[in-house]
């Protein structure tokens, strides 16, 4: 599914470059710098979450119709609508409602779903678990696969293997996600190998889940592998012109060793970044896969909440998504720093 895909699947070698100059010019112990960076970034993350909550609140405000109307439906009279709006606090001016919501959140209270009057944490909790499970599952399949393919493609660049894996990966991402999913169902579910949908009950064991969620995880794997593979390949190939790679070759090192020991460690930063970007996509961008495989994740819940104008739920999920994005980016930057001796070990 593409828009989210388009968010994350830019394949250019530059897509994952981010300015990392922040720490240049400062001296000190690497770990201290990392703690300072984490602190700074968490603060910025909070700011990001704040901006997002404003944007989402504003957007849901602009949606035609409101919660009271959605709840009461057509039969509602103007009086009952007014009464319900009063009861739900919808009559307050928008800034006040936002302020009330914000103060609630700041006290750790995400509130209750206005539509169902259930606590948001309860609504979101299991869904979040499901979403994380699927994301981790897909990541566990796709990250090793794409790194392996990327390294091999860089090693055997311009070989048949390189070209074929590149073309296949491109083909996989050029089909809409639901198309890929249906094809997988046709091949792997209708033949009885895997189930075509996921059912999660209290009796479901992890083993069952790994089996029944295989197809959605595979779909997502196909969708994100191309990006990570191409970035890995590009990052490594970028470095192959470096003098230290030539040096390694002139020291008589085998091509495999040159790539693995000399190129890969220096290509880690862009690779980590692109992996983080794709992990964020796996958490936030899987609505279509959820729909096709009837997987009870956060994406579907968010769309339901938007449809029902249940702003508190929309906000909560938007914040979860954004927090995932912020934290993954932070993690990527921390890992990039830790794996970069120039940032870790100052002069």
């Amino acid at each position, binding site marked *: 599914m593409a828009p989210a895909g388009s968010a994350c699947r830019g394949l250019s070698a530059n897509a994952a470059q981010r300015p990392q100059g922040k720490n240049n010019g400062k001296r000190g112990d690497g770990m201290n710098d990392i703690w300072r960076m984490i602190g700074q970034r968490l603060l910025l993350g909070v700011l990001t979450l704040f901006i997002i909550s404003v*944007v989402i609140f504003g957007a849901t405000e602009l949606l035609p119709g409101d919660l009271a109307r959605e709840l009461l439906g057509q039969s509602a009279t103007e009086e009952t609508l007014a009464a319900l709006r009063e009861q739900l606090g919808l009559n307050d001016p928008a800034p006040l409602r936002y302020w009330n919501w914000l103060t609630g959140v700041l006290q750790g209270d995400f509130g209750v779903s206005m539509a169902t009057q259930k606590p948001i944490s309860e609504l979101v909790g299991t869904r979040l678990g499901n979403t994380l499970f699927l994301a981790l599952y897909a990541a566990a399949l796709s990250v090793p696969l794409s790194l392996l393919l990327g390294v091999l493609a860089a090693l055997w660049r311009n070989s048949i293997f390189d070209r074929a894996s590149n073309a296949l990966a491109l083909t996989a991402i*050029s089909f809409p996600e639901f198309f890929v999913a249906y094809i997988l169902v046709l091949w792997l579910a209708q033949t009885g190998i895997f189930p075509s949908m996921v059912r999660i009950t209290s009796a479901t064991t992890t083993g069952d889940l790994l089996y029944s969620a295989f197809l959605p995880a595979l779909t997502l794997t196909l969708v994100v592998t191309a990006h990570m593979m191409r970035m890995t390949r590009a990052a490594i190939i970028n470095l192959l012109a470096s003098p230290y790679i030539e040096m390694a070759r002139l020291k008589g090192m085998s091509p495999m060793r040159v790539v693995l020991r000399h190129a890969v460690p220096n290509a880690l930063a862009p690779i980590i970044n692109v992996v983080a970007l794709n992990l964020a996509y796996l958490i936030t961008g899987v*609505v279509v896969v959820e729909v096709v495989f009837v997987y009870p994740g956060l994406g579907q819940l968010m769309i339901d909440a938007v449809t029902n104008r249940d702003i508190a739920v929309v906000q909560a999920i938007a914040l979860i998504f954004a927090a995932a994005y912020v934290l993954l980016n932070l993690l990527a930057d921390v890992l990039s720093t830790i794996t970069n001796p120039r940032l870790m070990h100052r002069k």
Partner: protein
Amino acid sequence: MTILLSIFIGLGLFFLVGFAGRTALHAAAPAHHKPMFRDMPLTASFGLAVIAIYVVVAILAPVIAPFGEGQVLGAAYQPWAAPHYLGTDKLGRDMLTRLIYGARNTVGIAFATTALAFVLGSVLGIWAALVGGRLDQWMSRFVDALMAIPALIFSLLLLTIFGTSVLTLILVIAAVDATRVYRLARSVAQGIVVMDYIEAARLRGEGMWRLIRREILPNAMAPLVAEFGLRFCFVFLSISALSFLGLGIKPPTADWGSMVRENATLITFGDITPLLPAGAIALLTVAVNFVVDWQLHRASGLKE
């Protein structure tokens, strides 16, 4: 067996189109560009040839298409036989015609959207990199925040607010995509603004707009063009995902994304119909990316 056969046919076509494309381009190119095309790998010439075919089909759609875009010609799901070489769709419209018009609409809209996203994203991104400081910080924070909202859901919200005309579709997807372009353009420009020629231009007293337009943009083109190719393809996917959720291009306009969606249930039965528009998208994506790879390769100057 059929799979093997189709792989052979596919490869054969690939080389045929590739060679033909390269020969044609080499013949047609102006003299000082000839070497570029001569050294072009086969994948790139295949890509260029495919793109050229798409463009021709898109422009000449009304001339080429055997029937009218929305014309209902008879029973639904007719088999592949003259005059409906690819059969008819569920409303009895000629599939080939729909595909041809789909090229025009899909490629046109995708192009407009991507172009808009790039103008917006790259100008703002370069500007931020050039000015730096607080403006850059605030703009980048804001864009980061927008990027943290899943694009599909954000598009969905915006389209629900503003309605789904082709114009709003273009504007919304462009706005969402522009954040990604912004980030790329900013990081590319950050590498350029430290160059001496930018310092020289600043010391000369050049204005902001000229710095962006004449000094930075031409040097940022390679990665931007590469990204353009990819974004261009993702717009199809965006539109088809949005039509999956009921917000895509309006009927009876033929667009590939919606056509895949419309016929998606047939995939369950192994029917080939939905593969046609999906294949059209995939072919273009692969073609564009081949060209992009080639351009990136040329830009990187890395001889392998």
